[in-house]
């Protein structure tokens, strides 16, 4: 029998706010353990949580971006459970009245077709602490506890690991474009759980559902789902039943294993949070937030392709971050070769940034400076190879391209008088290559060309060198 997968994803996103959801502690990542804590986020008795307005607004903006119905009345609930990562023994979350209901995220399938994935809801809650496990004990760092966390739940509309991958990629791009979150999975800013079940093709009813946790990268999600689909299909084909359970993905072994079965499923006993007043969202508030709506990633990608003549792939790399896209647009402005600018940004610039472990915001080269460098190459004043050298210098010292070229005397040598000398020297020093060329091995000229470039320290105009060499070799 043929089976198909039914997949739904639960995505948790840490919102990009300066302070926590219900107290003024900083949300900054990487601080020393337990330095960003206070009685509120440590769950001391008698404290009063107060909502961070920015977190509520970012959740509403997300709702607007994914076409949700933004609730006019929303409230908070306590989700009760015992676990050391949650010192109050409950997590403040939203149960029956989330800020956003319904919505759609459009994904691109292989081959270019698109598919709309339904969103069930998006609600706001507080993140929990981070725990570390030792031999006989566990240690808890509460810095993360209380960070604004948005949970986005998809409908079971996904049918394959690739669709899940495309959905997460699209959702991530949307969240980044709206400045909702940096979505850095390594920092745990975007986390994902998945529900997957199998059913015979053509059957409407869902099969027994398995929840997978602990997938830490978008490609990890794809691999975990592929494994789980294969595991469940094999079981069904042998006539076994799939049991409803929660499984943990182990990225190292590439397998999932049982965490808990249905009998131990949590009973969270939600009830309204008495310490927090409800959120009433007015038309004015929505109108105000609507003004912050960014150009959505898919629209931006299409515009980049059209306006700058870029391949889809390049456009995708550039729009992956709002600041990178903005950098590119400033550099491409007025350039005669926006494609060349894109090449420089996506290879040299991103390469150097990664090497220096810097973000685009910390880039020492300004967009206008990159633009100038590219036009120096375009106009033939320096070669592409020298261009890379100049770029490295610009990156190291923040100097303008023309200044580096001038200081280092890197201007391309295009006058035949000076080039003649180099060419003659190369011919004199390499009689074998000259003989090869004259014997009919035309490729030998490339070696000689290389020698001339070396003698000129890379400054010779390669096209001119070729012409002069040819003239001298054929003429002599």
């Amino acid at each position, binding site marked *: 029998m043929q089976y198909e997968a039914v997949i739904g994803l639960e995505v948790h996103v840490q919102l990009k706010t300066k302070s926590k959801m219900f107290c*003024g502690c900083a949300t900054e990542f990487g601080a020393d353990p337990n330095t960003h*804590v*206070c009685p509120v986020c440590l769950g001391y008795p008698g404290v009063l949580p107060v909502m*961070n307005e*920015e977190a*509520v607004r970012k959740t509403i903006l997300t709702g607007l971006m994914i076409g949700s119905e933004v609730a006019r009345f929303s409230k908070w609930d306590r989700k009760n459970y015992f*676990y050391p990562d949650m010192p109050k023994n409950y997590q403040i979350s939203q149960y029956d009245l989330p800020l956003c209901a319904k919505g759609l995220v459009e994904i691109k399938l292989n081959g270019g077709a698109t598919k709309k994935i339904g969103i069930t809801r998006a609600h706001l809650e507080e993140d929990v602490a981070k725990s570390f496990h030792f031999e006989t004990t566990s*240690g808890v760092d509460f810095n993360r506890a209380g960070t604004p966390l948005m949970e986005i739940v998809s409908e079971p509309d996904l049918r394959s690991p690739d669709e899940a991958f495309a959905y997460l990629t699209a959702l991530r791009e949307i969240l980044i474009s709206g400045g909702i979150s940096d979505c850095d999975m390594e920092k745990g800013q975007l986390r994902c759980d998945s529900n997957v079940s199998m059913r015979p093709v053509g059957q409407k009813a869902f099969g027994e559902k398995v929840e997978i946790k602990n997938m830490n990268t978008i490609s990890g999600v794809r691999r975990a789902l592929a494994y789980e689909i294969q595991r469940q299909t094999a079981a069904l084909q042998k006539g076994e039943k799939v049991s409803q359970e929660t499984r943990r993905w182990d990225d190292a072994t590439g397998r999932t294993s049982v965490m808990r079965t249905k009998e131990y499923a949590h009973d969270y006993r939600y009830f*309204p949070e008495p310490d927090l007043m409800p959120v009433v969202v007015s038309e004015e508030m929505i109108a105000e937030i609507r003004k912050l709506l960014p150009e959505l990633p898919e629209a931006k990608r299409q515009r980049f392709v059209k306006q700058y003549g870029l391949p889809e792939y390049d456009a995708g790399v550039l729009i992956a971050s709002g600041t990178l896209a903005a950098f590119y647009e400033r550099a491409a402005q007025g350039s005669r070769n926006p494609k060349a600018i894109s090449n420089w940004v996506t290879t040299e610039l991103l390469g150097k940034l990664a090497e220096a472990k810097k973000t685009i915001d910390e880039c020492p080269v300004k967009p206008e400076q990159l633009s100038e460098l590219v036009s120096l190459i375009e106009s033939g004043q320096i070669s592409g190879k020298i261009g890379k050298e100049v770029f490295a210098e610009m990156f190291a010292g923040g100097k303008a391209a023309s200044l580096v070229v001038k200081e280092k005397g890197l201007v391309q040598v295009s006058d035949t008088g000076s080039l003649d000398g180099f060419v003659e020297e190369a011919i004199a020093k390499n009689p074998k290559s000259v003989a090869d060329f004259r014997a009919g091995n035309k490729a030998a000229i490339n070696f000689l060309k290389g020698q001339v470039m070396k003698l000129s320290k890379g400054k010779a105009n390669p096209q001119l060198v070729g012409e002069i060499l040819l003239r001298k070799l054929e003429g002599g």
Partner: protein
Amino acid sequence: MAEDTNKFDVSYVAYLARMHLTDAEKEKISAQLKDILAYVAKLNELDVSHVEPTAHATPLSNVFRKDEVQPSIDREKILKNAPEQVRDLFIVPKIVE
């Protein structure tokens, strides 16, 4: 849940609260809880069809704070309340799930 006061799994409620009860305690508490639920169920006699459901007694909403960082509490002070501490972490019995 107040509708059916006779059906009450005291063992389950005790498990959720991480309480370990003897059989005698279970019997005693079960009877007490039934009384409490029956008492609360009296509220069902009120006609509240014209009252909006609410979780609060005060008609307040949108009690916000600006997204501004306030100083946190000194770690040394905070860790004084830890049952045990190692490497500036709160140490708890090993958590495995």
